[in-house]
């Protein structure tokens, strides 16, 4: 694989440095444009293994307040490229009230190995 570069914006602080990462055979060989070590660490992770917490809602049945949905999140980061898979897997899910914060809504969401948990109590 040849040399390639990727342009990123660092999110470490409000400065928002434009960072250029050079990759050779999938390995980071240079990071430029950052003004501090945090920028380099962020850029390395972001090009090799970017991850995100996914937050969304699922249907809830029998809520006393009449709420149609309960908010939820992945308990840990999932690969950035799997975000849509997680949301799609949750479309088929309906939980029954009562629900407590931290209750597992969907175990091992979309095969990521990460559970999706409720983030609100619904009576």
């Amino acid at each position, binding site marked *: 694989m040849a040399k390639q570069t990727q342009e*990123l*914006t660092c*999110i470490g602080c*409000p*400065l928002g440095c434009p960072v250029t990462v050079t990759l050779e055979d999938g390995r980071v060989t240079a990071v430029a444009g950052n003004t501090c070590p945090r920028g380099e660490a962020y850029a390395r992770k972001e090009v090799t293994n970017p991850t995100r917490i996914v937050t*969304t*809602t699922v249907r809830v049945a029998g809520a006393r307040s009449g*709420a149609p949905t309960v*908010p939820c*999140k992945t308990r840990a980061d999932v690969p950035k490229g799997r975000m849509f898979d997680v949301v799609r897997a949750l479309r088929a899910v309906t939980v029954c009230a009562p629900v407590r914060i931290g209750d597992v809504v969907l175990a091992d969401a979309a095969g990521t190995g990460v559970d999706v948990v409720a983030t609100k109590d619904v009576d």
Partner: protein
Amino acid sequence: MERYDIVIIGGGPAGLAAAVAACDAGAHGILILERDGQLGGILNQCIHNGFGLHTFQEELTGPEYAARFAEQVKQRGIEYRLGTMVLDITPGRTVTAMNRTDGLFEVQAGAVVLAMGCRERSRGALNIPGYRPAGVYSAGTAQRLVNCEGYLPGRRVVILGSGDIGLIMARRLTLEGAEVLAVAELMPYSGGLKRNIVQCLDDFGIPLKLSHTVVDIQGKQRLTGVTLAQVDEHNKPIPGTEEHYACDTLLLSCGLIPENELSRKMGVAIDPATNGPVVNESLETSIPGVFAAGNVLHVHDLVDYVSEEAAAAGRAAAAYVAAGCPVERSGRAVPIRTAGGPRYTVPRTVDPARVGKALTVRFRVGGVLKNKCVNVYFDGERVAGRRRPVMAPGEMEQVLLSKALFDAHPALQTIEIRVEEA
């Protein structure tokens, strides 16, 4: 008439933190009045994560953050009434409110904490030309529809304004299957946090069009499209730069305005720079015994700072009650002046005798400033300073002034916060 030591207007993050801190400072007879059917305020619809890093050292979602504070309120047995609309507060701190169980009722408060939060700038306030079809929402309304009511407001979306709620909704709508075509921002910089630009727009390839605005809205019954155009340095659309977007939804994320109808009606002095009350070091407004905190005071970026500020207001309210609710304000009022960038400060005056361990002064700058130093002068003498590589209107700044600093300057007349070349 019912009597309470402290009545808190609003059960969002500011009201909850004020109540908990007032209780922990020894106040009894605290009552929270909340308009919505649950405690937590706007946090209930902010289902994304990123809350609480300062307060709880972990990243929580909005509902989780709200639940932690609501739990603290319940543990302390602090009274609250939901579904309760406050209609009037007199300068003598008689609160008139109504709800379905009590009807119209009055409460006499020893101290009042204003914690009503803020509202979004509406289409009417933005003067956008074009028709008035269905499909134009404030970003926060869309957020409530999607996250709390379970509705998707539309399929093809344009967002005007790059405030954080707009950015968050760009991601949320995309995840829910809508197509977000563009985010247009009038200013040459975004009003949102960097992290949100990256994780809500860049992650999904949504273009951010800086120095652009909506110049036309099409569709008579339902929105059918909008026209964006680039603007010049005077924010005037440049002819020939128009681009048409066929869409069924336009979200507006163009700024938040503290909700001070009640404060204005009771005669609280308002700072035109913040649209919130003018306050002293105790976060006390121009009316003795009336305190303010959170987004009703000035719009914040981070809820952690709202909680911190509101806790200070709660403690101050408890101290006011403990002192027997003095009618006249005593003590000094050293003004805080600014130069070189800050648009305002909260607080505006300081009584050095009432500063606890330290005083946090919060402010925002009016434009993007790079490589500056925030210097604090006591009567012309530089007493503190901090380098800031970059400051932007979208990110609140703060300086911490220690009690020792005030003790070392007993004859202090003026405090000045200057943004100067580094």
